[in-house]
């Protein structure tokens, strides 16, 4: 059974599941998804990206301009099939935990 993902990795995978994004875009989406509870700086984000790239979960997709920002070219990242599988595996694990927790709470009632 694979080891549980760290919160940072899980959030990055969740963001990239909807499509490719650049570093700043990932950060802002993680903040929005977690309703401001998870704030990662560039050190955490790119440290996680490094490990995820090495594990084959994400890859660089292209370097291009973000039309919603300035005319600077940015590096975009996308999920790989392995990354999608890791995300699904983690969600499955969460479902199992929730099922156990609900069973315990129902037993407690």
């Amino acid at each position, binding site marked *: 059974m694979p080891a549980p993902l760290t919160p940072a990795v899980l959030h990055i995978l969740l963001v990239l599941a909807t499509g490719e994004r650049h570093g700043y875009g990932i*950060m802002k989406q993680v903040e929005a998804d977690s309703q401001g509870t998870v704030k990662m700086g*560039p050190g955490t*984000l*790119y*440290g996680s990206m*490094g490990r995820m790239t090495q594990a084959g979960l994400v890859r660089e997709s292209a370097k291009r301009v973000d039309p919603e920002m300035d005319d600077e070219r940015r590096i975009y990242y996308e999920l790989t099939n392995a990354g999608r599988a890791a995300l699904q595996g983690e969600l499955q694990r969460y479902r199992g935990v929730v099922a156990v927790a609900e069973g315990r709470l129902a037993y407690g009632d």
Partner: protein
Amino acid sequence: MATDVAVQRYRKWYAMLLRLYPRPFRERFGEGMAQTFHDLCRERRGARRGLFGFALWIFCETLVGIVQENTTHMPQLGKTVLRVALGALAVLMAPLAASQFVEDWHWGMRGFAAVYAVFFATGMVFALLTRKMGSWYYKAVVGVALVAGVSLGVVEHGPGGGLGTSGAPVVPQCAGGGGDWGKPGPAEGGWAGVDVVRDGGDARADRRDAAFGRAALPGAEYGHWAWCVHGVVHCLRFPVPARRFGSGVR
């Protein structure tokens, strides 16, 4: 409010900080990190919010990442050295902070450097002695012996003893005055600690608990050596009447 000049300045500093990453990581992600930092700064500037606190947080967060990335690619000994160096630095914060509040505490840069060297050396001895010990009990024994040994050298040097008596600790006194070796003080407590650990190690070793003996004895001996080196250095610099050696140096 953040200005363009401030953003440029912080971006420049951030780029300098990124150079501390290992080269492969920096070549792969450095540009993206600098760009992301710039984007974050511009967002703050757009919201007319201050940059200093934010930049400080990002710099600290990135510094943690730098340490992690560097230790990931380091051999085990390098990691140990780095951990001990950072640990010694953390321990040094205690006297550094205390010196701000205690009167007549004048170590100076040289003094703090010397104490840091002692902490670092002790940490390395501890790390090397305990690297193959599985039991935290044995590690604790070595730790106690080392702390007792170091306390002999650090707390009790020079005339009038250590912090408890004159308030002027080891290093400045090493640099500037002789010592009263026979005077009771923290050294005797530290010395007793070393003896207790050594004797405990002896006793357990006699009862065939060899691991305990192996754990306790080197630590106690380190304390003895620390004390002896201290004595030699002290004598070379500040001749002490021979009669005093009888009561203080063993």
